[in-house]
Each structure stands twice: as structure tokens, then as C-alpha cells.
């Protein structure tokens, strides 16, 4: 039982690595075959990963997001899914080069700290819990796509401003297109993030008896939320776009990563995972 889970997860990692390599290939040279390989590898990885997720869920008889290992794995699954969704819908497979490395790192990390299923602590047993976790991870993954697009935007903008308009310039999408996609992914990611925080607070009220207890993770997620709220507000009411929006989307995602991982590693509070 335990080994079938490990095998599926390893298989997913393998596919992600192939997809990542293909994505790097697209940076170097445009090729329809490479881009098909990238998509196929990511789809295969996603399917294997989803299967692993289900297996783990059956084993633990709960949504498998209790330990750091399980959380990382779940986040990576959402990352792969969000990337696939955006890339296939908009035919921007080169985006994979900016997102799949993160998917690979997170999946690898999850695999390295893999541990057998443990009984869930009672505090995690609530209806709000799966909602909170799934919404948050979906939001984080979508905002990771926004961040990848931001990096891509800055790169392309730099190439155009420096008049280096051959090679990579021809393979990256137009600035307008990157900016559009960035806006769309932000408009999906931000509500998810918001809902994630709200359901989390509802869960907290059930589990700990208070909606908000200012533990570091909560504080940081609020900071993150304000960053994205500012970005979205700027986009809608002032018309921020381009470089400024790209930089903010990168900063915002850095804050997410700190909230998700940094807080657990550097600070202490209620949100610590079972494995810490």
C-alpha cells in the first residue's frame, strides 16, 4: 500500500522533470514537438500525481494534507493542474519553463520527507479543513502562475527595451498577451486566496474557538492578501499593468511562499504541521 503511493509520486516527479526539461528546451529553441512533449509529460505527471493523492486519501481516510509532506504534494498537484489549464487554453507552453521548476522542487521535497500515514490530530478533523486547504492551495498555485507570467513579462520587456529582438524574443509571447494572462490568473487566484482565508478563519473558530488569533501564519497571510488586494485594485481602478504589475505579482508570490513555508521554518505558532 505504502509503496504504490511512493511509486505513483515518483512517477509524477519523473514526468514533471521531463516536462521541465522540455520547457527549458523551448526557451532555447521553438519546436512544436518539444512543446507537445512538455504538455504530454505534464498531463501524465498530473494524472499519476492525482492518483497518488487519491491513494493517500484512501489510506488515511481523510484529505491527505495533514503533514508537511502531504501539503507539499498537494500544492505541487495544484501547481501542475493550474499550469496545464493556463498553458493548454492559451497555447503558451513556454510558460512551463517558468513554473514547472517550482513544481519539480516541491514534488521532490515532498518525496524526500515522505512518511507513512499517521492518524490525523483531532484539530484537523472538521468540514472546514478540506475546504480551507483546497481553496488556499488552488489560490496559491494560480498566483504562482501569475508570478511565472510576471517573470516572463520582465524578461520580454527587457529584451524589447534593450533592442535584443532575436532569439528568445521571438519565442516569448507578446507583452500584451502575457499581461492579459497575468490579469486573468490574478482574477482567479485572488478570490480563491480570499476564500481560503475566510474558510480558514471559520475552521479556526470551530477548532480553536476564535476566528483570528494573530498567530504568525495568519498575520503573514493577511499581509499577502493585502499585497494582492493592492495589485488587483491598482489594475482595476488605476490601470496598473506591465512592469509594475509584474513586479508586484512576483513580490506577492514570494510572500505566499514565506507564509506557506517560511513561517513554519522560522517562526512558531498554531499552524505548524505535524512533522515539525
Amino acid at each position, binding site marked *: 500500500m505504502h509503496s504504490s503511493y511512493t511509486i505513483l509520486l515518483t512517477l509524477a516527479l519523473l514526468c514533471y522533470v521531463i516536462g521541465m526539461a522540455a520547457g527549458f528546451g523551448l526557451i532555447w529553441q521553438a519546436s512544436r514537438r518539444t512543446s507537445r512533449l512538455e504538455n504530454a509529460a505534464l498531463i501524465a505527471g498530473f494524472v499519476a500525481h492525482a492518483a497518488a493523492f487519491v491513494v493517500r486519501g484512501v489510506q488515511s481516510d481523510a484529505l491527505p494534507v495533514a503533514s508537511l509532506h502531504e501539503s507539499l504534494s498537494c500544492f505541487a498537484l495544484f501547481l501542475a493542474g493550474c499550469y496545464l489549464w493556463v498553458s493548454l487554453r492559451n497555447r503558451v507552453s513556454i510558460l512551463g519553463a517558468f513554473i514547472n521548476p517550482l513544481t519539480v522542487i516541491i514534488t521532490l521535497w515532498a518525496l524526500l520527507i515522505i512518511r507513512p500515514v499517521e492518524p490525523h490530530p483531532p484539530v484537523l478533523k472538521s468540514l472546514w479543513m478540506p475546504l480551507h486547504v483546497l481553496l488556499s492551495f488552488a489560490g496559491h498555485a494560480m498566483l504562482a502562475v501569475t508570478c511565472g507570467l510576471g517573470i516572463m513579462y520582465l524578461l520580454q520587456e527587457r529584451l524589447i527595451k534593450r533592442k535584443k529582438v*532575436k532569439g528568445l*524574443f521571438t519565442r516569448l509571447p507578446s*507583452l*500584451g498577451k502575457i499581461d492579459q494572462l497575468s490579469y486573468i490568473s490574478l482574477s482567479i487566484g485572488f478570490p480563491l486566496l480570499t476564500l481560503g482565508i475566510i474558510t480558514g478563519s471559520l475552521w479556526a473558530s470551530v477548532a480553536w474557538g476564535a476566528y483570528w488569533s494573530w498567530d504568525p501564519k495568519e498575520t503573514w497571510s493577511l499581509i499577502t492578501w493585502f499585497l494582492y488586494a493592492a495589485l488587483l485594485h491598482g489594475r482595476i481602478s488605476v*490601470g496598473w*499593468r506591465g512592469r509594475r504589475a509584474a513586479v508586484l505579482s512576483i513580490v506577492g508570490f514570494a510572500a505566499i511562499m514565506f507564509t506557506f513555508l517560511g513561517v513554519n521554518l522560522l517562526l512558531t505558532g498554531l499552524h505548524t504541521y505535524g512533522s515539525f
Partner: protein
Amino acid sequence: MHIIALGVNHRSAPVEVRECLAFADNAVPAAIEGLRAAAGLHEIMILSTCNRVELYATCADPEATREKLVAGLSGFHNLPAARFADNLYFFRDAEAVRHVFRVAASLDSMVVGEPQILGQLKDAYALAVEHEATGQVLNKFMHRAFSTAKLVRTQTNIAGSAVSVSYAAVELARKIFADLTDKTVMLVGAGEMCELAARHFITHGVRRVLVTNRTHARARDLAAEFDGHAIAFGDFHNQLDRVDILLSSTGSPTYLIRPEHLAPALKKRRYRPIFLIDIAVPRDIDPAANEMDGIFLYDVDDLQGVVAENIDQRLQEAERAEELVALEVDKFTGWLESLKVTPTIKELRRLAAGIAGAEVEKTIAGLGDLSPRQCKKIEAMAGAIVNKLLHAPVTRLKEEAEHGNQVPVEVVRQLFNLKNSGDRNQNPGDHQQRETGSTTPDA
């Protein structure tokens, strides 16, 4: 049988000569007929564009045909041969194949990689086909030329990027904006390059054009041409927020557009980017504008730098294309060579089939009462012996011929005493047309 190509192009002949030799579309049929009759040719086609006039033909005696074609050209255009003789180039066999493949692949064009020539070649071929001036060799030759051109286009990046300043501007705009159709172009001042670029933008979907000029009448004229609007020169700074792409080429000695004009425009247009193209010398737009978020400024040197790099890239790609062409030339000349053995193989088969047939007849007559089924069996056996015996030598002959080795052919002819060589190498186009039906099964 030989393939020949004869003609002039933009490098070998000045336009005064090319225009005298050019064929109008409606003159080509008569020219095909005339030249074919004059040189006694079976297959001929004429490619006539503004950069080249070329004749492709198959013939038995290249040198004689060349003279006849030159005379024919001179007669048709009523032009003394001496006027163009020095400008003519003449290729035969592999060289002719290589030349035509290079023409088709746009390696011989004035701007390497520009794809029009392939369409022109296809039209020229269609015209020749229409007038029944092509046979098996020229047909296959042209189809190989087309497929070589396609191969070069797909396998190399030879037509990849813009090689004119105005087109380079369009390509850049397409990397800044997601969609050009809802964009507005403004022309500040009038210049040929600006107009050309504006036209390129319109063909790529831009619908709104604004024009401004110190002379307002000039702006109105130009605006009418583009179905756009003229704007008073004194007012154009206030309209900058409406503009996505601005082309400037005025004679102004100082910067006309500076960051302080652009900042409010950007704010007003909610920071949607503006692409500025400054074609004027001295420049119209302060280069500091390029540092602003959302402003992309290219001056004439920048664009020329882009074009120069693109041309460099095309030339690099052209080197790879030459290798592809060389391979295709080898393949095609191999096929041409293999044509030469076909008559020998035919004769060999005819000889063997004749002997087998005679022997079968004798045997059946000697055996007396045989059922039709038994007769069939004996015939089939004789046929099988002939086929199996000839299979290896025929295959070998073809292989050797494809590599240009004609020795085995001669040996076979001597060994089997094949004499019926009267029309060998004379007119294989004819030959092939008669033979194709029967030669394919043993290929």
C-alpha cells in the same frame, strides 16, 4: 538526355537588358511554341519575373540547343543576340538542377528567403503544362524543385524575420501588443518610410490612423489615403493618449516628443503601452522616453540594427539551406542517371521474354495434349525463371546508374548483344512516357 537552364537575373544583367528579354504573361504561350519549334525541343518552360528571365528545357545536345535558344530569344524579342549574350548564364545537368532548386528555394533571390519566387515558378510551370510543353523529366524536375523549396522553408528559418525597416516595426509591434486590430497608429510628419510602415500596419489589422503634419493640407491628403483622420499639428500632443503606435519623421531640429508629453498621456490611457517609432534624423523623440514604464522607443538605427541582424540570420540559414539543396540535387541527378539504363533494361526484358515465349511454345507443341491449366503452369514457370534471373542484374544496373556508373550498362549490352540502341539517349522524355506503365512493376 540533358537538363539545361539558360537565362539572366538581377545579378547578371542590368534592368535594361532584363526588361527587353522579359515575357509578358500573354506572350508566354507563343514563346513556348516558338522556342520549342526553333530548338526542336520536347520539354521547355519559361520563368519570367522582374528579377529574372529563364528557360528550362531537356535536350540531347546542350551546346546546340543553347545556340538555338539564344537565336530564338533574339528573334522573339527582336533583339540582337550580342545585346544580351554577355549577361546570359547557362547551366547543364547537375548545375542546372542546382540552379533551379536554388531559385525555387529563394536562395538566388535579391532578398534571400523572400517567398514570392516559388509562386512565380509554380505559375510558370502551370503555364507550360497547360501548353503541353512538359514531359516526365520536366514534371518530376519541377515537383522536386517545389518540394525542395518547401523543405528549405520548413527546415530552416530562412524566411523567419523581417528584412525591411518598415516590416521590422510591425514585427516589434506584434510582440508588444496582443492584438493589432484595435490599435491606433499616428503618423507625425510625412515620409516614405512612415507611409510604408503605416501600410504594413494596416495590412496587419490596424484600423484607426491619425495623421498630423506642419502643413495641414498634406496631413489631410495622407489621412484620406489611409481612411484616417488629420489632426492639427499644434494639437497632436493632446491626442497622444489615443495613440498606441506612433511613427514620427518630421524635419524638426529638436525633440518634438519628450517624456513630459508622454507621462500625462500614459496616465490618461491607464498605462496601456505606447510604441514609438522615430524614423527622423535628427531624431524627433527624446531617447529618454525609452526608460519610461510602458514606453517602447525605436529609432531608425535600432530598426536598421534589427534588420541587419535578421539579414545575417537569413544568410546563416541560407548556408544550411544550401546543404539541403545539395542533397536534393544529388537525389534528383541520381534519378536522371537511372533513366539512362531504362532502355537497356527494357531491351533485356524484351529479349528474355521473347526467348522464353518461343521456348514455351515449342515445349507445349511437343508435349501434345495438355489442359489449359497445364499450359498456364508452363508459361508461368518460364516467366518466373526470366524474372528471377533478371532481378539481380536489373537492380544492380539501376543502382550503378544512380551513382553515375555507366560501365555495367555497356557490359550488359555487349554480353547480351543488345543492338537496338538507335533512339537511346535521344529523347528520353518520349521514351519514358511510353515506358512508364511497364517499368514500374519491377522497380
